[in-house]
């Protein structure tokens, strides 16, 4: 009774904070409105289309999908692929994380880079390399082993490229968790008589389990929603994301395409909720007490060597793919005529220079918008209290959970007519970049702001600093790494986007990844290699510039978000 009264009073107060601060009030309203317009509304448009037949509500699309083995097969395929890739990528990511965090193997710096390198690569660069190496005219399969094979197209090839593309997700999720496991715990287990093996299985692994679970789910969703790799190397192996695209754009069956995209939404939103509400609460509280934080002795020399060899082999394998793309750019006709040439460059720049420029311009325009918006939302969520704050928090993170395919379809449906006639414009692409990437900035910002306890700012005030001074000298420097990490991620993701923007590009505003895809489909692999190579160079140069300008380290940029 008294309790509910108190609650009501608190609510009133928090509403009061909003109305008594007009700038905050207007800001929140504007942000909420844009989140609704660019995240909720397109999703609603796609859902509505998939759930109607001749203008009335109907489940007929879904019924059709589930009663035809042709579609059921692609669902099964997607799930099977997801399970295999999630398991293998988590395994590889775990080994990297363990080798770096616990094994302290030689060359940790190199392996850290290798563990995140695939993130900054174009979406189907690995698929392209795999074709060059293992395809019908592959260097290894056809030339060295004289196999006549197309086996690389389909499940096998997809598993290879997706594992390579996604083990960094697992690594980034797990490395922090493994580093967070106090070495004293492992030392103590051994002190109590547990052999190293036993220590690993009774202490280290159980403590990492929530992280392993989280990483598995993230990769599973990543594999499920991946579009770039399956469309290039999927072959006969039909998956949901590609099917939705082909149905929607190829066959012009918009409702069925939308329904297939909606099906992708089920697992992604499910994982989103599991992440947000279950795993977070499951994480073990760290026990107070001062840890000696000494290197744990839980990894033997032999195990260290094993870890070193494994990570080295994976790294070399990944590097081989890069070398392949670079060589592919210079070789006249792969597997037929190995002579060196610049003609792919000439051709690629002929067809691609404008697109490269446009891609870059849009990425550069959307990056600061994304980063600032993310930080502003984070600031409001952490520091302000008002009714409806949860809604803001939820909506800003939601787009993370929506598969690109569903976003693309939703945007087309929502923005092809008045009052929001945006299709074909640069604006729609910028909107996609901003609202798809803003969750990363929000998440990083929230984490950074939460670390700054109120005490820190209060003590600054207490020492005589004005609010503005405190913000400039205390708050800002502390959130700076998170801000630039968010910006870099936004840039990289804008440059490597495909699954959503493939629905939205136009002749005027094309995207480089779409162009690479087109070149690959017409088997101009040399040109595709050149364009991929160019994309990698642009991303690396950008990351390098950010690092130089801000003085941040690579691990600060790619380690604060996951």
């Amino acid at each position, binding site marked *: 009774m008294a309790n509910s009264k108190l609650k009501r009073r608190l609510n009133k107060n928090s509403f009061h904070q909003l109305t008594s601060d007009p700038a905050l009030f207007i800001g929140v309203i504007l942000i909420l409105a844009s989140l609704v317009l660019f995240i909720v509304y397109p999703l609603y448009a796609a859902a509505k289309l998939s759930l109607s037949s001749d203008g009335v509500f109907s489940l007929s699309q879904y019924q059709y999908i589930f009663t035809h083995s042709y579609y059921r097969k692609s669902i099964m395929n997607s799930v099977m692929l997801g399970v295999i890739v999630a398991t293998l990528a988590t395994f590889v990511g775990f080994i990297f994380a363990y080798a770096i965090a616990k094994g302290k193997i030689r060359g940790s710096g190199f392996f850290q880079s290798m563990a995140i390198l695939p993130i900054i690569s174009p979406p189907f660069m690995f698929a392209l390399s795999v074709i060059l190496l293992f395809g019908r005219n592959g260097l290894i399969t056809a030339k060295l082993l004289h196999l006549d094979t197309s086996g690389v197209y389909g499940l096998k090839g997809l598993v290879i490229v997706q594992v390579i593309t996604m083990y960094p997700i697992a690594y980034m999720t797990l490395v922090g968790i493994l580093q967070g496991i*106090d070495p*004293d*715990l492992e*030392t*103590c*287990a*051994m*002190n*109590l*008589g*547990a*052999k*190293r093996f*036993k*220590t690993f299985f*009774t*202490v280290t692994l*159980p*403590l990492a389990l929530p992280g392993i679970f989280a990483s598995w789910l993230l990769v599973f969703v990543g594999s499920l929603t991946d579009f770039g790799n399956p469309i290039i190397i999927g072959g006969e192996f039909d998956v949901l994301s590609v099917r939705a695209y082909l149905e929607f754009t190829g066959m012009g069956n918009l409702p069925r395409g939308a329904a297939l995209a909606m099906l992708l939404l089920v697992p992604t939103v499910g994982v989103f909720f599991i992440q947000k509400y279950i795993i977070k609460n499951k994480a*073990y*509280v*760290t*026990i*107070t*007490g*001062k*840890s*000696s934080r*000494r290197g744990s*002795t839980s990894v033997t020399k032999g195990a260290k060597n094993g870890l070193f060899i494994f990570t080295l082999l994976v790294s070399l394998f990944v590097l081989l793919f890069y070398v392949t793309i670079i060589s592919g750019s210079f070789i006249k006709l792969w597997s037929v005529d190995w002579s060196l040439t610049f003609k792919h460059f000439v051709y690629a720049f002929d067809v691609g220079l404008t697109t490269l420029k446009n891609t870059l311009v849009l990425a550069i325009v959307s990056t600061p918008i994304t980063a600032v918006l993310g930080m502003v939302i984070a600031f409001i969520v952490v520091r302000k209290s008002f009714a409806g704050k949860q809604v803001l928090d939820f909506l800003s993170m939601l787009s993370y959970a929506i598969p690109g395919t569903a976003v693309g379809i939703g945007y087309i449906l929502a923005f092809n007519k008045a009052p929001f006639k945006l299709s074909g414009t640069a604006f729609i692409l910028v909107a996609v970049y901003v609202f798809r990437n803003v969750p990363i900035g929000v998440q990083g910002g929230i984490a950074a702001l939460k670390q700054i306890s109120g005490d820190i700012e209060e003590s600054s005030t207490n020492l005589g600093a004005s609010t503005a001074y405190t913000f400039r000298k205390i708050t800002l420097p502390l959130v700076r790494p998170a801000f630039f990490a968010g910006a870099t991620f936004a840039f990289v993701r804008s440059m490597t986007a495909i699954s959503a923007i493939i629905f939205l590009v136009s002749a005027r505003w094309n995207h480089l990844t779409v162009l690479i895809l087109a070149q690959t489909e017409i088997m101009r692999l040399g040109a595709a290699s050149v364009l991929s190579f160019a994309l990698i160079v642009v991303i690396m140069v950008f990351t390098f510039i950010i690092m130089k300008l801000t003085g941040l380290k690579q691990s600060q940029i790619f380690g604060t978000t996951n």
Partner: protein
Amino acid sequence: MEQNNNENYLVLKDITKVFSDGRGNDVTAVDNISLTIKKGDFVTLLGPSGCGKTTTLRMVAGFELQTAGDIALADKLINNVAPFDRNMPMVFQSYALFPHLTIFENIAYGLKIRKLSKEVIMNDVAMVSQMVNLVGLENRYPGELSGGQQQRVALARALVLKPEIILFDEPLSNLDAKLRIQTRTEIKRVQQMMGITALYVTHDQSEALSMSDQIVIMNRGEIAQVGSPEEIYNNPNSSFVADFIGNANFIDANVSEIGSDSLTVTVQGKSISVGKTTEEFSEGEEVSLAIKPEAVDISLEPTGFLGKLDVSSFLGSITEYKIEFENSFIIAIHSNTAGHTMKHFKMGEEVHVDFNKDFFHIYKK
């Protein structure tokens, strides 16, 4: 033989530990120390932070391999025994409780590894829980316990293995002052009851003085002195030990005369006679005299040396006086027992300082 085994139960011989970071920056954490520990003794490694206590303890536990030297337990070299085979449970400063296991599972961890039967495990855990007063908390997780309770779980987890020897690394440093004193009597009681040999690391002198049979004072990776608490307190062998263990006052003096079994030194033109030590002094040499605060007396009667009262602090059972003396400060402590009334002096007042001359120790400067 048996006798010898008990006297030299745990032996560290010429132990050195050098950490190198691979870039040529070597840190000698422990520098050629030797130590013999009697069975059943409570031995403390005491010294300032960074002097090598933890490193020494971790070498005994087997987590660090010494760069040189031998460690023997009951006449057997254990240099090459793996840490998990040493059976020397350690109570960590961080407690190192397994956050994913309940209190019961934490305590039972070592027993399960030793593949004991379920009944034995239940029984032993119950017994130890009783002993350290954890009954009723068995099903909780470490995160749900207070600091003091967590500390007792860490202790129980070690005790349940019924070890011959138990290692402690500053186990009380995360507790508040009152709990710290309570828990140290607790640890001592259990150790004596079970007849366990204890090697205990601390930087807190009152902890060391109150708990130990033997104190090993360490300084910069070396052993400065070994002895019983009384020996160390009353006869510190160096100015470092005198300062560290007794908060001694140091007074500058000049050697004026060397007798057969005593020395005469001059302070403020007055002669003081002090007992000889093993160190050699020469006439005219500048030396340091160490004297504990409780051996310093002050009064208004012109009996001794001249000083000026800087500040006095009433601390309940004692009163502490800070006195300006010979361009530096010394501390005097008076006990406020019934019968003695507290002496009242004014700040900045000239006072006369007297020393209980039996308590002087002389050290080279």
